[in-house]
């Protein structure tokens, strides 16, 4: 099997907490990302789903080299990036681009759209000839759906709607002709009517330009429009991973089932029985013993307090980290 575009193995990111007083010696750590593994192929989209604090954004930052890894391996186009020198990272980042959540804050208000999209080329010292640069900027704006491109070149972010701003951010990523787009909640600040446009644009870039997309979100409702596969994260771990269809239609992990049950149904006739988990994701400093999900799990049994489950295949490309999977599945059949 050829090596995938991105190969993530045993990735771990721990943040040491500064001791409260000078006499405290016990070093405490936040387990932000704890042994994450997945592959991502060219032109494939993986949705990384979980609540605030599950580690999904930290994982994105490590993939861009913006947070050094504590352990593990990240191979991009066959090149090992973990512990690689800055020159290697700089080169890789040309092909791994990020889109942030809030287009009201991620764009420099003093720069025109043309300047914002030109900046990545300057940073990477690409397309230094004026004509060539202009051509690439126009092409990127066009690909991001800002048409006609010359109409937007001299505009400032405040003249644009939220959806248009997010398209500018996407154009600034596309201008480098990336192979991987990391999109961290790219639509959560946008109105529902605009969300569909941006999701469709990303889905289209994936197919047409063979760009891989890592789509990070807390909302399982938005993933079906773009993702091929879904990885559900809880407290730094992937608890379920599989094809979109499998995870959305036959979720196996109790956490995935709960997350899916609370996605608002688009019709009062389809109101689902909600599995509302109480409280919030626990403190990633003092991790629960056994399964990390057991304190909030509606089907936890005594053994869940002791056994830390690992991902196990339940179908083709579908894996779940729960010791009760088989048992619960037979019961419902």
């Amino acid at each position, binding site marked *: 099997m050829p090596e995938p575009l991105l190969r993530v193995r045993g990735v771990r990111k721990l943040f040491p907490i500064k001791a409260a007083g000078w006499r405290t010696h016990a070093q405490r750590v936040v387990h932000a990302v704890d042994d994450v593994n997945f592959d991502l192929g060219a032109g494939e989209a993986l949705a990384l789903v979980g609540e605030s604090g599950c580690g999904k954004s930290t994982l994105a930052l490590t993939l861009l080299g913006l947070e050094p890894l504590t352990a593990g391996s990240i191979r991009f186009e066959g090149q090992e990036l973990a512990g690689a020198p800055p020159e290697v990272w700089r080169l890789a980042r040309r092909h791994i681009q990020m889109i942030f959540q809030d287009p009201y804050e991620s764009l420099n208000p003093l720069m025109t759209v043309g300047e914002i999209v030109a900046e990545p080329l300057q940073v990477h010292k690409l397309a230094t000839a004026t004509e060539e640069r202009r051509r690439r900027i126009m092409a990127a704006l066009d690909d991001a759906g800002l048409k006609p491109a010359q109409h937007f070149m001299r505009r400032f972010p405040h003249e644009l709607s939220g959806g248009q701003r997010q398209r500018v951010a996407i154009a600034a990523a596309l201008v480098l002709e990336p192979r991987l787009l990391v999109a961290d909640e790219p639509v959560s600040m946008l109105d529902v009517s605009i969300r*569909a446009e941006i999701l469709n644009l990303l889905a289209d870039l994936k197919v047409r330009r063979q760009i891989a997309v890592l789509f990070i979100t807390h909302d399982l*409702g938005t993933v079906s429009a773009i993702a091929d596969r879904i990885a559900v994260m809880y407290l730094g771990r992937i608890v379920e991973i599989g094809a979109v269809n499998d995870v959305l239609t036959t979720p196996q992990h109790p956490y995935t089932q709960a997350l899916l049950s609370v996605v608002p149904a688009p019709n009062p006739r389809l109101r689902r029985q909600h599995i509302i988990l109480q409280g919030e994701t626990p403190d990633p400093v003092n991790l629960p013993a056994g399964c990390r999900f057991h304190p909030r799990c509606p089907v936890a049994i005594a053994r869940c307090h002791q056994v830390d489950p690992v991902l196990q295949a339940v179908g083709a490309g579908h894996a779940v980290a729960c010791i009760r999977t088989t048992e619960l599945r037979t019961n419902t059949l």
Partner: protein
Amino acid sequence: MPHAILDRPPLLEVSHLDVDYVDPPHPPAAALRGITFTLQRGEALGIVGESGCGKSTLMLTLLRLLPAAGRIVAGSVRLDGVELLDLDARAMAALRWKRIAMIFQGAMNALNPVRTVGEQIAEAIRRHEDVTNRRALDRRVSELLDLVGIAASRREQYPFQYSGGMRQRAMIAMALACSPDIVIADEPTTALDVMIQAQILQLLADLRRQLQLSILLVTHDLGIVAELCDRVLVMYGGVMAEYADADTIYNGAAHPYTQALLQAFPDPTQPAQKLAAIPGAPPRLTDLPPGCRFTPRCPHVFARCHTAQPPLYAVTPAHQASCFRAETTSGGAHA
């Protein structure tokens, strides 16, 4: 919603409300035109629309908290039969929070960071009611926190010690401080995770039942409206696009804008679907298209749509839509 409830005189009755924003020497911008709806005791009404559709202006008008440039040009807002637009500032202030309270958007920033949550809830009570007995006040704060699912022991904590969901609960406790009849919830779950959103919606549903509370839920998200509301008012460019019970809105929408909003909504149980985006952007109030405000984005435009804003047609007695296509089904009956 059962007809028995609809037959009672409404708690809140808004009719033919027009609001302008003035900015001389420019001509005034028509922020709201002809807004007409009722709210019954215990009813949850969803007010839905994109950014700039006028839903926030409507909420501020009901509370008479419009910014200086806002002008109520025409219409009526009656609470239990009393005309709110005629009240002087003092009478309105006496009624605000005691009868109509509001849960503001962005709980992260709406709380005072240097005062404890308990103090801030106590302040909401003290400002609007004559409670001087310290012990009675304390008891009321504890009751309110309990009502929204926060342990009374956390009253002495500061907002930064609360998670996002707990801050939103504290905001709800504050809105309930004076036992209002109506709570306006402006995007109460924006910026919250779906699980926390579900907790907050559940809480609002419970409070509504427990306290016979009327809720005006203002949002751009038809999903959370489907979870909570009996009736839905869809707004577009400052006018009513459609107004009906929730089931009709989701299963028999007559306005192309409502239909488009529904198609833009992802349904996770239908993984293969392609989302239908609504092309273009909502109109600017200072630059409204001639005729129907939705024409630039509407898939069903015909010549007449460019000539006049369609009136609200009564598709059925309890279902209104402002689209010429609804004229035939309504037999031309204006709402």
